[in-house]
C-alpha cells in the first residue's frame, strides 16, 4: 500500500534551502501562492518506491512569530497543517543563528530532519560539526550535505524513506521554573490553543497572536504578570536568551572550531573592503546597477524585437480581409505577442537577480542604497525595481519580490508605474519632434524627472495614508560571498517567467481581445474608425479632455489603445490620421505646444499598461492594482489639466 508524507522544508535565508529543495524535487514543481497572500509557495511531489512525498517550501525565516508575513505563513503551516516531518536546512558555518530556528521547530513537537548544509564552507572556516554527537544528543539522525553540489542528498533520502519510524527529538531547552510552570498550565488547560511548547511559549511572550478566547487571555495575563514579577526582565528577551543559551550549550559539545584557517571569512571581508566601502561602495553599486540595466534591456531587447518581428510575420501569413482574419491578426496573434514580448527581459532579470542574491551582492546593494532610498520613504532594496522601471515597468514590478516586507513591496509596486519606461519614449519623441524641435532633450528629460518626482510623492503619501505605523526596520544579514550557481539561477528565472505567462498572461491576452472587439464592432466598420465602438467611446469621452487642451476623438482613442502598451499610442495616431506624413501635419494642426505638453504628461502618468496592471495585481493583489489605476488616471488627468490651464493663464500656447 502506498503511503503519503507531507514534508516541509524550512531554514534561514541563505542557508541553501532552495538548492536542497531543487535537489529533492527535481522538475516536479508546482508554483503558486500561499492562500490569501502573494507570497510564493513551491510544492513538489516525488514518488520513491511505494511512498509519495510532497515537499513544501516554507519561506526562509530567522524566527517564527506573527510579526512578519513570511513568518506567519511558516508558523501557520507548521502548527496548523502539521506536516509529517520538517526538514530544517542549517548553514553549518552559522551554527548559532541557524540552530535557533531548529530549536523553534523542535518545540513545535514535530518530527524534525536536521540537514547540516554547506559543510564545505564551514570546514574552510575551520568549523567542524560532529553529527554523531548531535545525533546522540537529540536522538535523531543529522544529515550532512553540500546541496549546491548534490552531496549528501542520498543520505537524506535514506532518512526520508524511514520517516514513518522517525522519533521526535528528545533534547529541548529548559526555562526557569515559573516559565515551565506557566507552559504546563497553558498546555493542560488549553490543549487546542497551546498544542505545543512552541505555541505555549509564543502565547506567553506575545510572539504569536493570542487566540480569541477570553478565558485564555485572562489566564495568560495572570501568568505573564507572575513570571515578570518573579524573574526580573521581559519575557520575550528572557525566552530568546534561554533558547540561545541552549544553542550555545549544544555548540560547546558538538562544534569544533579551529582558529587557524579563516580563509573564507577573510575572503568575504576582503571583498567587502571594496564593495561596502564608504567611498567605493557607491560607485561600485552604480556600476553594478548600470550593468544590470544594460543586460536586462540592451541585451534583452533584440530578442524582444525578434519576437515582435516573428509575430508580425505570422500575422502577414494570415491571408485575406474580413472580421475573422482581423480577429486572428489583431486579436489572437497580437494578444499572444503582447504577453510573450516581455519574456526575454523577465527571464534575464530574474536570472541576474538570482545570481546577485545567491552570490550575496543583493543585500550589499540594499545596504549601500538604503540611506538614500530610506530618505525617500522606501527600502534599500526598492532601488533595483525602481531603476528597472525606466526600462520596462513589468519586470520592475515583478522585482518587488526581492523585498521582504509587505509594506515596502506595496509602496514600491505602486510607485514604479510613474518611472518613465522605454515604451513612453516614442510618444515623447513624436510630440517633441513636432513642437519642441529646439528643446527636444530638455523636454524629454523634464518628463523623466517629473515621473521620478511623482513616484516619490506617491510612495510618501501612500505610506502616510495606509502604513502609518513606524517604517519597516532594516535588520538584514550580509551573507558570506558564494560562487553563484547558474543552474539554480536559470531555474529561478524559468519559474518566474512561466509564472508571468500563466498568471498575468490571461489578463493581458483578455484585454487585447476586448480592445479588438471594441475596435471591430459593429460588424463591417473600419478597424478603430470613428464609427466603431471604440471610436464612439472616444467621441463620447473626448469633451472630458477639453480642459486639458486635447479634445479630438482620435486623441481619446489613442489613449484607450495606450492601455495596451504606451508605444501603441503612436501607432494608433498613425492609423487614425492615415500614414506618417499625414500624422505630422494632423498632429501639428490638432495640438498646440502646450496641449502637446499636457498630452505627454497624461501619457506618462495615466495607467501604465495592461501588463503592468496584471503584474501589480499578481504581486500585491487586486485591491492595490485597482487603487493604482485609480490614482494614476486621476493624477494624469489633473496634471494635464493643470499644465494646460496654468500655461494658458501665463500666456503660452
Amino acid at each position, binding site marked *: 500500500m502506498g503511503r503519503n508524507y507531507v514534508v516541509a522544508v524550512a531554514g534561514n535565508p541563505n542557508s541553501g534551502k532552495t538548492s536542497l529543495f531543487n535537489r529533492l524535487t527535481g522538475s516536479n514543481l508546482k508554483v503558486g501562492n500561499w492562500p490569501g497572500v502573494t507570497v510564493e509557495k513551491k510544492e513538489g511531489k516525488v514518488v520513491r518506491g511505494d511512498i509519495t512525498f510532497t515537499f513544501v517550501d516554507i519561506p526562509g525565516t*530567522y*524566527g517564527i*512569530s506573527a*510579526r*512578519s508575513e513570511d513568518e506567519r505563513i511558516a508558523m501557520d503551516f507548521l502548527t496548523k497543517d502539521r506536516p509529517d516531518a520538517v526538514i530544517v536546512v542549517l548553514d553549518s558555518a*552559522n*551554527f*548559532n*543563528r541557524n540552530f*535557533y530556528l531548529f530549536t523553534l521547530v523542535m518545540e513545535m513537537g514535530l518530527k524534525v530532519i536536521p540537514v547540516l548544509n554547506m559543510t564545505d564552507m564551514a570546514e574552510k572556516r575551520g568549523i567542524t560539526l560532529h553529527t554523531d554527537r548531535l545525533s546522540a544528543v537529540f536522538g535523531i539522525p543529522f544529515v550532512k550535505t553540500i546541496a549546491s553540489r548534490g552531496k549528501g542528498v542520498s543520505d537524506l533520502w535514506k532518512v526520508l524513506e524511514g520517516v514513518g519510524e522517525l522519533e521526535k527529538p528528545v533534547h529541548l531547552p529548559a526555562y*526557569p*521554573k515559573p516559565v515551565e510552570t506557566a507552559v504546563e498550565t497553558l498546555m493542560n488547560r488549553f490543549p487546542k490553543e497551546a498544542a505545543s511548547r512552541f505555541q505555549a511559549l509564543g502565547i506567553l511572550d*506575545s*510572539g504569536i497572536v493570542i487566540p480569541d478566547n477570553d478565558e485564555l487571555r485572562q489566564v495568560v495575563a495572570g501568568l505573564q504578570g507572575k513570571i515578570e*514579577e*518573579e*524573574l*526580573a526582565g521581559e519575557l*520575550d*528577551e528572557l525566552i*530568546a*536568551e534561554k533558547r*540561545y543559551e541552549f544553542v550555545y550549550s549544544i555548540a560547546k559539545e558538538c562544534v569544533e572550531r579551529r582558529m587557524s584557517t579563516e580563509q573564507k571569512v577573510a575572503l*568575504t571581508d576582503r571583498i*567587502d573592503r571594496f564593495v*561596502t*566601502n*564608504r*567611498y567605493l*561602495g*557607491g560607485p561600485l553599486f552604480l556600476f553594478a546597477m548600470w550593468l544590470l540595466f544594460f543586460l536586462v534591456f540592451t541585451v534583452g531587447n533584440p530578442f524582444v524585437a525578434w519576437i515582435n518581428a516573428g509575430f508580425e510575420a505570422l500575422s502577414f501569413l494570415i491571408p485575406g480581409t474580413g472580421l475573422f482574419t482581423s480577429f486572428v491578426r489583431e486579436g489572437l496573434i497580437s494578444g499572444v505577442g503582447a504577453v510573450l514580448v516581455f519574456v526575454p527581459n523577465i527571464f534575464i532579470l530574474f536570472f541576474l537577480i538570482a545570481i546577485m542574491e545567491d552570490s550575496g551582492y543583493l*543585500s550589499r546593494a540594499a*545596504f*549601500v542604497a*538604503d*540611506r538614500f532610498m*530610506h530618505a525617500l520613504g522606501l527600502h*534599500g532594496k526598492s532601488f533595483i525595481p525602481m531603476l528597472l522601471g525606466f526600462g520596462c515597468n513589468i519586470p520592475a514590478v515583478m522585482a518587488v519580490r526581492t523585498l521582504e516586507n509587505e509594506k515596502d513591496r506595496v509602496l514600491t509596486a505602486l510607485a514604479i508605474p510613474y518611472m518613465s519606461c522605454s515604451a513612453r519614449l516614442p510618444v515623447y519623441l513624436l510630440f517633441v519632434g513636432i513642437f519642441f524641435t529646439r528643446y527636444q532633450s530638455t523636454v524629454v528629460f523634464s518628463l523623466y524627472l517629473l515621473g521620478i518626482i511623482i513616484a516619490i510623492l506617491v510612495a510618501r503619501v501612500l505610506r502616510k495614508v495606509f502604513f502609518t*505605523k*513606524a*517604517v519597516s*526596520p*532594516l*535588520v*538584514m*544579514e*550580509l*551573507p*558570506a560571498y558564494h560562487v553563484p550557481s547558474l543552474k539554480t539561477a536559470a531555474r529561478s528565472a524559468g519559474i518566474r517567467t512561466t509564472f508571468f505567462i500563466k498568471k498575468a498572461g490571461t489578463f493581458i491576452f483578455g484585454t487585447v481581445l476586448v480592445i479588438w472587439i471594441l475596435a471591430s464592432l459593429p460588424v463591417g466598420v473600419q478597424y478603430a474608425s470613428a464609427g466603431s465602438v471604440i471610436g464612439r467611446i472616444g467621441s463620447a469621452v473626448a469633451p472630458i479632455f477639453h480642459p486639458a487642451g486635447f479634445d479630438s476623438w482620435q486623441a481619446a482613442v489613442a489613449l484607450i489603445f495606450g492601455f495596451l502598451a504606451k508605444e501603441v499610442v503612436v501607432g494608433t495616431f498613425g492609423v487614425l490620421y492615415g500614414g506618417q506624413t499625414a500624422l505630422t501635419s494632423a498632429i501639428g494642426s490638432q495640438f498646440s505646444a502646450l496641449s502637446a505638453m499636457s498630452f505627454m504628461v497624461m501619457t506618462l502618468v495615466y495607467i501604465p499598461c495592461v501588463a503592468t496592471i496584471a503584474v501589480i495585481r499578481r504581486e500585491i493583489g487586486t485591491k492595490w492594482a485597482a487603487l493604482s489605476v485609480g490614482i494614476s488616471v486621476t493624477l494624469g488627468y489633473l496634471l494635464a489639466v493643470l499644465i494646460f490651464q496654468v500655461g494658458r493663464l501665463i500666456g503660452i500656447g
Partner: protein
Amino acid sequence: MLTHTAEDYLERIYMLSLKLERIKSSDIAKEFGIRTPSVISALKLLKEKGFVHYQKHGAVTLSEKGMERALDVYDRHKTGYRFLRFVLGVPDDIASSDACGMEHSISSETVAAMKDFFSFLTAKKDKGVDIQDEFRKFRKEKPILGKDKDKLDEKSETQSLSAVKDGIICTILKLDGSREVKRRLLDMGVIPGESVEIRNRGPLGFPIEILIQGYVLTLRKDEAETVIVRGN
C-alpha cells in the same frame, strides 16, 4: 517593625530560592559576605518573628508571611531599579545600589505610580512616541559642568549602539525598540549578554554593519539606537 537588614535577609533568601533547591545558612553568608554565625543569629530572630522556617543545620525556607514580605520588598527593589535604569537611564551599578536604598523607604503609593508610568511609556511607544528616547537625547544635549561631568564620563559607559565607534567590542545590555524590531533582533541573535562590534558603515555613516554571533548584520540608525550596549 522590621529593621532594614531583616528585610534584606528576606529578599536575599527569596532570590536564593529561585536559584537553589535547598538554602543553607552558609549560602546566605556568602551572599552578604559575612560570617555564618552572624547569619544564624539573624535567622533565629527572623524565626521568632515567624518569617522563616529554620532548624539548626537544616534548610532555610520562607514562611507564608515571610514570602509575602520578601515579594513586597523585591517588587519595590525591582520597580525602583527599573525606574532608575530604564526610565531615567542611570548607569546599571548606580541604579542597583540606589534601588537597594530605596526599597526600604519607598511607599507603595510611589511604587504603584512608577508601574503606571511603565505602562504609560509602553503605550506611548506602541503609538510611535518614544519618550525614553527623547529624554535620553535631552540629557545628552544638556551641558554637564565640572566635577559631575568627570564622574559621569567615568561611570556611564552605557550607550546606544548607534553612538559606538567602529571596531570597539561592546556587550549588549538591553533592547529598547518596538516589539516588532525587538523580536526580529532577538531572532537574529542580538541577545543581551552577546558581544557586538561595528565592522563597517554605509556611504553616509549609516546603515552600519555589525558582527554578531559570527556573522554580519546591518542596521539603520533607528534600529541601532534601540540596542543599548556597554563598552568592554
